[in-house]
């Protein structure tokens, strides 16, 4: 549907691209390969360079160094109006002096598509985003969600090889955002267009994407599927940026095959963790474990394989479906634990200052070096 993928190489290829503004490196030697039909997210905080990277894909910025290929064609020097790429802007950038219909038709008119074909394609795409009854409206008569769909329709109607989305859902309220997330995914699925999404919202990136690149200070910290990035972060930054995580600083004291023993000053006993490629003995590392991987109980757990620590409930929060606990270890370290509230009344609920045991399996944690 979106043209031939020449060869079997990646559909979008970013080769060692840097962008300097003066001395400041907004994007710093980034390389990336995105496959055809992917829904790829670039995730990072504000000022991490993610928008600059997107703008280089769209053609609004020229890389200081490096090349960008789309479908095998070097587009590095191509101006935006010649690229097979369309963008959905964060502000939506809907032309205020044109009707919805005119907005959507604009791109086709610039391509000198025949009049009746324009009408047909505009109708089709407006149907797809469920705006067919709003065709004659002016943008100021639309709600935020409707504007978002106009922007989407306008960017999709040219059937670009790649659709770039800059914070597509940031301007919507929570309920609408959730709804639109799934709508975006189903549209992407239907049209098979490669999506590149820039977002600061990790939840949005997790739900939407086939793969995520986590970006910080102009560099990629990790690229992987949402699951990889969440379950197996490769750096403290990624572990901390995505979701909540408990980190224990320590030194490796023993390595036995995959099993690594870490001496940690913050805990009473050594921690054990698994690593396929463990760092050297004596190196300083960090054991990271997600709150939902930790079990909490009032009785001492029996499994001796597990890491077991005791502490008191410092604070707790009830969220309906789950409860969050902040457990203070004897050394003062706070560990966050989340537990599903499966039963309503069988167990006594934990209260403040209760003595509890927390435990987790060695394979639930990851060892982080950076």
């Amino acid at each position, binding site marked *: 549907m979106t043209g031939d993928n020449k060869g079997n190489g990646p559909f979008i290829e970013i080769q060692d691209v840097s962008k300097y503004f003066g001395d400041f490196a907004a994007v710093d030697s980034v390389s990336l390969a995105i496959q055809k039909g992917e829904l790829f997210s670039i995730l990072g905080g504000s000022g991490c360079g993610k928008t600059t990277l997107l703008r280089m894909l769209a053609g609004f910025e020229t890389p200081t160094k490096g090349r960008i290929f789309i479908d095998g064609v070097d587009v590095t020097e191509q101006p935006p109006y010649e690229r097979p790429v369309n963008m959905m802007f964060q502000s939506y950038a809907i032309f205020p002096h044109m009707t919805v219909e005119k907005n959507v038709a604009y*791109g086709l008119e610039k391509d000198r598509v025949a009049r009746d074909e324009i009408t047909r394609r505009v109708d089709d795409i407006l149907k797809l985003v469920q705006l067919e009854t709003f065709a004659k409206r002016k943008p100021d008569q639309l709600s935020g969600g409707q504007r978002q769909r106009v922007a989407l329709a306008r960017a999709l109607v040219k059937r670009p090889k790649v659709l770039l989305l800059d914070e597509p859902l940031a301007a919507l309220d929570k309920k609408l955002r959730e709804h639109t997330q799934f709508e975006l995914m189903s549209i992407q699925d239907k049209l098979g267009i490669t999506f590149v999404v820039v977002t600061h919202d990790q939840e949005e990136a997790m739900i939407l994407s086939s793969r995520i690149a986590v970006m910080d200070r102009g560099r990629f910290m990790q690229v992987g599927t949402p699951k990889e990035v969440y379950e197996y972060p490769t750096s403290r930054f990624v572990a901390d940026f995505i979701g909540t995580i408990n980190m224990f600083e320590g030194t490796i004291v023993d390595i036995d095959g995959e099993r690594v023993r870490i001496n940690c000053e913050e805990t009473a006993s050594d921690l054990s963790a698994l690593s396929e490629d463990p760092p050297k003995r004596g190196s300083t590392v960090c054991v990271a474990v997600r709150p939902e991987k930790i079990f909490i109980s009032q009785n001492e757990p029996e499994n001796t394989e597990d890491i077991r620590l005791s502490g008191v409930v410092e604070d707790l929060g009830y969220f309906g479906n789950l409860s969050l606990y902040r457990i203070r270890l004897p050394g003062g370290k706070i560990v966050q634990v989340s537990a599903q509230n499966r039963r309503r009344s069988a167990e006594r609920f934990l209260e403040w200052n209760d003595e509890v045991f927390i435990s987790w399996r060695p394979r639930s944690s990851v060892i982080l070096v950076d």
Partner: protein
Amino acid sequence: MKKRSRFILSILAFGYAFLYIPLASVIFYSFNDSRLATVWGGFSTRWYGELLRNDQVLESAFLSLRIAFTVATLATIFGTMAGMALSRFGRFRGRTLFSGMITSPMVMPEVITGLSLLLLFVSLQQLIGWPAQRGFGTITIAHTTFAMAYVAVIVQSRLSAMDESLEEAAMDLGGRPLRVVFDITLPLIAPAMIAGWLLAFTLSLDDLVIASFVSGPGASTLPMLIFSKVKLGVTPDINALATLIILFVSTGVLIAWWVSRRAQRQSG
């Protein structure tokens, strides 16, 4: 509370009186039958008739309008270009200098502007024989130089309030830069351009000092004519002329207000 509002109202009334009593008296005395401009002699429209029979007045009024129209159009074209350069071309070399030079005619005393332009025209004439005589052409050039400064400022402020991603979106959809200017930028800044045109028109119509410097024999604009007539004493036909100008200008202001209100409503 009641007392204070009465106080405020009286200040308001005083302010309006201060602004409009002189204008009202001009309009009032334009219907005066008496030959003396300040003595009431009964209602009459004879001075309007006399005005219309006065070729000198009509000629300079027509000259002023022609100049104002040309100036407003030229100033809008150049001013819009300058405003776009200032707000859309990023930080090019010499931007600060350019910006300062664009706006300096606004703060430059008119006497200086007029004098320097006169010197320029005179030396140009000696060097290349142009302008052969001073009049419509020289006044138009002189007025355009300072009127375009106002247009540039109005257009620039409108452009900087406008979301730049609108133009980027148009380019992203396949519009070449020049096409985007006509498709997106100009329609969106049209209200600012109309306001700029009207302002330039009024400024040109209004100007006495610069026009006096750069015009030559036989070419006097309406303000120049009025000023020279008043030197010989205020005649009632001047009142009639002033009334017509007030009518003309207020119509212009009303149109400008209507256009900008409509544009504001449209942009939400």
